[in-house]
């Protein structure tokens, strides 16, 4: 096997086996001799890499996908699912691709002009080229946008289409998408995972690179903004959206701010983002939410994720929104029926890429056609709405209906024909995929993406999101239950020029990461607090389970120290009462999700807050947070100790990531302030519980251990723990990173370094309070410190935390909708 490692054999077994069984029209079997050679090379290389075991290849690629943090949700999923990436890319030659590119470019231009017409002069409707009832039937038609043109007249910045290839090799458009380009980020990640998994394979095959497309898209968004170096946000519906992970990835990749509605505010017809430096102008939005949610005062008054008066900012001009609100009007299936005639009317051309044949039943002749040929057609909702008589969601083959269903459907169609379309049954060709450990053909569709570049010209992404049908309706959501995704590579005859980005000029060098939205600051702060609280909870559990109390003490619930430890767990909501025996008690505090303060629950909060910071946290962070709790058995103390220790190590790893990998930005400061704040507050609590005037040696030992200062103490003092030196070390020593005074100094440094809103040089409230806390502790020594001093420090910390929240974070108010009865 050693020789294999040097020169992997290019076995043709996979290719030959596959071709024996490939159906007519298969992408590989049908390929030109040149392309077939590429397929053979690729399959040979993949086979060699996987030692001829397709399952091994699938595992390998799947692992790369999961390492990238790729995941998705189906509607209704609470947890994200692992990303199903097939290991075999689809290959399409340059010539075939050129045809698709031309077709998509033509279509994007056509749709742009049709949308512009619908929202301005409406000449297409007036001239009878397009029925008014096709426009008004769309739930994405927003009449209020009429006469409100976008900057430079660009309603569309991106356009996506689902295309399918028939058995004769002909490509058809199955659906047009302009509301959100869902899938474009996944296409990028698929490529990343595949190229990581396959080394130089893609380069060797001359696969076209995707990066230039995204650079063009970015420039296209920027070009329509009013300012030269614009601030652009990616507007997300939030972390519960199915494609949130994709949105976060794209924001990061393109250098856009990932924003939710409540990050933004419209003032005087201009859009701003709330940051820790006050309101900052936003020049453009790449929106990933439907128009109806954008502005509760102009569109759907029930929306809670939009920005009040965003409509005004659009109408006033000077704000780029891609795609422009209302663009979705062209997405309906019924609309597709009119594109061939619109292409003639608007462009004077035939469609290069035909539609799937569609008959809208709102027209008399088409209605009769659908009625007469019902068994040979697929019947669906014309506007993607619930309609009468279609038992299965929105699309049903006529032949699958029984007699009663058929009668019901025909009766419903007679009453409201405009709600229905008939479409031809699509036959899709296949491509090689790994199924159950074998290479076998699967039908596929591609989602392809088009964007405007800086000059406003259309660019087609040289690749696609490939979807391999498990079963079910391939035209439905991006990914269905049993579907797989695959990368698609456009193969050039010649090597791809190494870097096509060079022409665009080098960006200006910068050293800071831009401004920090108020909500991100809020989340980072609380992320820090929750991580620190988790660590302290773990230390309490470890102390209770016997880790800290010196050997001769042994774990016992009877000692006063133990009762106070358990009391703290109760107070923090990690356990509900102190009645249980030590084992079950610790097991509850570790793993009971119903206890809001248990380690499991706290880690879930950490993951949840982290989710809202997805564009700011490294994937290593995710891996650590997502690891399951170590296993333990409440009856075996060693397992509890072991689990707590391993979790503490994990928290240390998170601290290490923050310390070594986070840039020293304001974001890092908020995260660190959260840690410091929580640690200082916990320190006050612990000293008042275990460091009182009558503290025993046991108490002080527990205290030193909980505050992780056992070693420091022993290196300074040869005697056992005594009250004044312990208090000094834990409360006042500025060199002990666990001491309260140390946290106070770091907090004061952080608030001093944060931006100020005052132009008069006066300190803001957080700075005043932090400095006062430092000054309060500085002159004290361990022998003069009283518990009253500790209580005072604790209340000052609380005040500081509130002041930080008031000054820097979003003040989210409860809002109430007023509806008046008629």
């Amino acid at each position: 096997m050693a020789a294999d490692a040097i020169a992997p054999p290019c076995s043709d077994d996979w290719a030959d086996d596959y071709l024996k069984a490939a159906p007519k029209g298969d992408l590989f079997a049908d390929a030109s001799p040149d392309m077939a050679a590429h397929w053979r090379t690729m399959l040979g290389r993949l086979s060699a890499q996987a030692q001829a075991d397709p399952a091994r290849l699938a595992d390998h690629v799947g692992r790369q996908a999961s390492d990238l943090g790729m995941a998705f949700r189906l509607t209704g999923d609470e947890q994200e699912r692992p990303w199903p990436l097939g290991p075999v890319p689809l290959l399409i030659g340059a010539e075939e691709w050129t045809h698709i590119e031309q077709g998509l470019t033509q279509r994007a231009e056509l749709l742009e002009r049709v949308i512009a017409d619908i929202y301005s002069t409406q000449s297409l409707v007036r001239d009878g080229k397009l029925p008014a009832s096709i426009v008004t039937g769309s739930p994405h038609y927003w009449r209020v946008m009429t006469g409100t043109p976008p900057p430079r007249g660009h309603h569309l910045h991106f356009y996506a289409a689902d295309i399918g290839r028939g058995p004769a090799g002909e490509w058809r458009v199955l659906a047009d998408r302009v509301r959100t380009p869902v899938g474009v980020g996944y296409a990028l990640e698929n490529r990343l995972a595949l190229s990581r998994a396959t080394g130089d394979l893609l380069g060797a095959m001359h696969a076209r690179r995707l990066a230039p497309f995204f650079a063009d898209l970015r420039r296209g968004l920027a070009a329509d903004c009013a300012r030269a170096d614009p601030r652009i946000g990616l507007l997300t519906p939030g972390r519960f959206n199915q494609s949130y992970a994709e949105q976060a990835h794209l924001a990061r990749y393109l250098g856009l701010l990932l924003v939710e509605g409540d990050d933004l505010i419209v003032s005087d017809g201009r859009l701003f983002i709330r940051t820790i430096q006050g309101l900052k102008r936003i020049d453009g939005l790449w929106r990933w939410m439907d128009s109806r949610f954008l502005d509760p005062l102009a569109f759907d008054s029930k929306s809670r994720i939009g920005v009040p008066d965003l409509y005004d900012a659009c109408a006033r001009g000077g704000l780029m929104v891609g795609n422009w609100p209302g663009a979705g009007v062209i997405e309906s299936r019924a609309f597709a029926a009119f594109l061939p005639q619109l292409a003639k009317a608007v462009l004077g051309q035939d469609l290069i890429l035909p539609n799937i044949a569609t008959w809208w039943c709102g027209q008399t002749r088409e209605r009769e056609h659908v009625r007469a040929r019902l068994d040979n057609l697929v019947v669906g909702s014309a506007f993607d709405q619930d309609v009468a008589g279609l038992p299965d969601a929105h699309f049903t083959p006529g032949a699958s209906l029984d007699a009663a269903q058929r009668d019901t459907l025909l009766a419903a169609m007679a009453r409201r024909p405009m709600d229905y379309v008939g479409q031809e049954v699509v036959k899709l060709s296949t491509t090689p995929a790994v199924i159950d450990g074998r290479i076998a053909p699967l039908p596929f569709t591609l989602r392809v993406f088009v964007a405007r570049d800086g000059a406003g010209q259309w660019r087609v992404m040289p690749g696609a999101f490939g979807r391999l049908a498990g079963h079910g309706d391939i035209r439905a959501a991006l990914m269905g239950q049993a579907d797989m995704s695959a990368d698609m590579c456009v193969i050039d005859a010649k090597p791809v020029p190494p870097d096509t980005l060079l022409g665009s000029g080098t960006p200006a060098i910068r050293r800071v990461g831009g401004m920090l939205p108020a909500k991100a600051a809020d989340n980072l702060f609380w992320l820090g607090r929750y991580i620190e609280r988790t660590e302290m909870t773990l230390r309490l559990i470890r102390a209770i389970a016997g880790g800290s109390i010196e050997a001769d003490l042994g774990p016992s619930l009877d000692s006063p120290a133990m009762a106070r430890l358990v009391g703290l767990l109760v107070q923090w909501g990690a356990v509900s009462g102190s009645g249980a025996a030590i084992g079950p008690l610790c097991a509850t505090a570790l793993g009971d999700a119903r206890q809001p303060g248990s380690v499991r629950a706290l880690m879930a909060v950490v993951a949840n807050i982290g989710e809202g910071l997805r564009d700011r946290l490294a994937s290593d962070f995710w891996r650590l947070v997502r690891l399951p709790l170590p296993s333990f058995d409440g009856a075996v103390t060693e397992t509890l100790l072991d689990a707590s220790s391993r979790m503490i190590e994990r928290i240390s790893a998170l601290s290490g990531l923050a310390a070594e990998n986070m840039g020293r930005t304001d974001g890092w400061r908020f995260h660190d302030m959260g840690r410091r704040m929580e640690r200082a507050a916990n320190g006050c609590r612990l000293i008042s519980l275990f460091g009182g005037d009558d503290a025993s040696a046991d108490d002080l030992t527990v205290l030193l251990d909980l505050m992780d200062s056992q070693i420091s103490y022993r290196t300074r003092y040869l005697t056992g723990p005594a009250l004044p030196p312990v208090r000094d070390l834990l409360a006042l020593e500025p060199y002990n990173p666990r001491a309260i005074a140390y946290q106070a100094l770091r907090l004061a440094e952080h608030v001093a370094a944060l931006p100020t809103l005052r132009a008069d040089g006066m300190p803001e409230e957080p700075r005043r309070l932090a400095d006062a806390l430092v000054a309060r502790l500085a002159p004290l020594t361990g022998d003069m410190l009283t518990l009253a001093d500790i209580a005072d420090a604790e209340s000052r910390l609380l005040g500081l935390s509130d002041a930080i929240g008031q000054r820097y974070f979003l003040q989210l108010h409860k809002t109430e909708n007023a509806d008046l009865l008629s």
Partner: protein
Amino acid sequence: MIYHVRHRTILRYAAPVQVARFNLRLKPAPWPGQWTSDHALSVNPAPSVIESRPAAWPVQVSRLVIEGSIRELVIESSFRAGVQGGAITAQPDDPDIGTVAQAALVDRGMGPSAPANYLYASPRAPLLADIGTWAGETLSPDQPIVAAALALALRIQSEFAYQPGVTDAGTPVADAFAARHGVCQDFAHVMVVALRLAGLPAAYVSGYLRTDPPPGMPRLVGADAMHAWVMLWCGPTRGWIGFDPTNGCITGDGHLFVAMGRDYAEVAPMDGLFIGGTGQSLSVMVDVAPEEEEVA
């Protein structure tokens, strides 16, 4: 008839509103056969912003912003309006429902009151199959349009119980339909849905009724607040005709048009964001007086 209309709304909050950004739809939109003058809007506390907004439908929208602690908000809208007399009735040459439905599908209008806008389901008026079944023969395609719609309005009036308080502005049409009760808003929604299910363009209208009836006539139901009824497009010749399912009649010179949209949400007299406020309570007072009476 010429009317003086006064409409006062008082909102009280247990915890004060910090910022209010909201829309008012209280000024009558232009409508054939009706004129409006001397519209005045008074709001207390005084808004920092008050602007008129473009609207998708025959609706006049005012946008207001009020900043500062609000415990009580008083909104008073008043105007003069004239409505042309002359009762509308079914005619022997009225088109049938099937003909009107087909005419609506091919109509090329795209304006705010173009029939195509009102053909489809809208968020507050989903096309519930049960309502279609219930309306059934009343709206069969061969029925003459005006007579059939009046028959439907009369059926709602007789089969549904008018019960203020059992529904509110947020009650889904399905609930009101299932219980066969509600107020004008619910009845108008049911009628809109039934008409659209028959393929007809139907709109939701908000407006006012004269408070006291002409001598010898019964007082209409719904006159003590804003009222709601239905507009039905009856073909290119007859155009839009109002039907009041609460009172089982075709609207006449006692009905003052304010706004028309696809459903309640698009003509709601008030909607928006009231940040910080809780414990809202509401009182409404409407007075619609014929001008002659004031002189007398």
